[in-house]
């Protein structure tokens, strides 16, 4: 079962952390990536640049508009994602709970859609 773990961070709070705290954070995340790579559960993932640097685009009646910033102005912004392939939904929850951001902000666990299917 493949899941995407969406990492939400409070940008202000993150910026306010000391470099030391940030390093602890990054190491904890790095350890989990290393562990999941070794078990063959890690599919991929990236960190995202600051949400203030986002550009949003819409096309209406063929007219393209591009605006600064993310679609939703929220305190917590998408800061990165991981894609994992695990045996059970419980395992996905366990990994998400261990991700350092889960202790401060939150992780969203979303199943990925797939093209297979069972007829009824």
């Amino acid at each position: 079962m493949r899941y995407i773990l969406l990492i939400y961070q409070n940008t202000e709070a993150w910026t306010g952390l000391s470099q030391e705290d940030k390093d602890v954070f990054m190491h904890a995340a790095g350890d989990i990536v290393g562990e999941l790579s070794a078990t063959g559960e890690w599919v991929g993932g990236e960190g995202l640049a600051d949400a203030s640097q986002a550009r949003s685009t819409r096309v209406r009646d063929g007219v393209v508009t591009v605006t600064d910033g993310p679609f939703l102005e929220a305190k917590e912004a998408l800061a990165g994602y991981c894609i994992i392939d695990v045996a059970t939904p419980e395992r996905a929850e366990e990994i998400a709970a261990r991700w350092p951001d889960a202790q401060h902000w939150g992780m969203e666990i979303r199943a990925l859609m797939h093209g297979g299917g069972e007829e009824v």
Partner: protein
Amino acid sequence: MNERILRELAPQVLAAVVRRHGRFDLAEDATQEALIAAAQQWPAAGVPDNPRGWLIAVATRRLIDALRAEAARSRREEAAFVQEPPAGDGDGDGDGKCDEDDTLALLFLCCHPALSPPSQLALTLRAVGGLNTAQIANAFLVPEATMAQRISRAKATIADAGACFEVPPEEGRAARLGVVLHVLYLIFNEGYTTTSGERLQRRELAREAIRLTRMTLALEPGDGEVAGLLALMLLTQARSGARERADGTLIPLAEQDRLRWDGALLEEGTQLIQQTLSWARLGPYQLQAAIAAVHAEAATAADTDWPQVLKLYDLLHALAPSPVVTLNRAVAVAMVDGPRAGLAALDTLDGDRRLASHHRLASVRAHLQEMAGDAQAALAGYEDAARRTTSVPEQRYLRGQAERLRGDVEKAPTAPTVG
């Protein structure tokens, strides 16, 4: 042609190399390298007179290279000793019985209970099925690096568990065989549930599972569940050409064009299960195959012998109760005793944490509610199920069901008809 020969020889070659030198992990890599070398060289140079001997020789050379490299590494690391490869006790050549046991031992090893199901699947496909890592990764829709790690981790886990390369002793063997069959069934389902929108290589998994199950049946002819699983796979695979519309929408069993079912597979599966039921101790795979056989013998959905299906589900429920069995049995109950009885049979599932939130429960309930004439509830149920599924074709089907009912509900909001 070459690929088929190679895939059949793969487990024999690996077993022979492990027998001679131990080190399943390195032997498995060496065998893969020999298979790749053969795939590259044979098309131009021709298949050697003794392909099996050729592969064993190449794999052995690669293994010795790997052992030397490892020894050199440990010398550099000033390790206390260099492990010599253990002396071979048998050559595995020519002795048919020995080869058969070896392939079976390999299957048991790859389906070791210490491994997670995804690891068991991956290792079985590579070591017994002779597929390469890229093919397996492609079939499971993960990057090759992820699959490579999964396989090497699985091999390390087996080594840590101290697992032996041997057919398990009589005691506990049935349980171990149960794990093997489960892995084969999971591989089959990975392939069978593949639709035209997905990578073709995934579909190969169903055929590969059938091939490996045939092989297992030849090795364990006395176990009725192996035959039951093979029959179940054949009877299920027979429907694969009829389960999907040209646009990729799934077609439910009741609406499939039965002329498009594969007659040869149906006949083989039906004969196999009938014959097996006459001698074997009854088991869950045999019962599921028997149910599939009842569907297979009905010329149209309306001709289905539902009382017989229900009887078989009752047996299955008694023998191996599970939420999925309860779910499927409820459909049979509805067909025999009416939709209200079927809905009542579903009620126990609300307490099941895993299934309560599963789209299959919502969709079966919606189907029975529609049968009972409660279009409003059925509509809500199909929509709920559509939100819960992770399958694109299932979601399209469920949304289609909801769409169809929405028309009915809007046309005749107060006068539901009992179907």
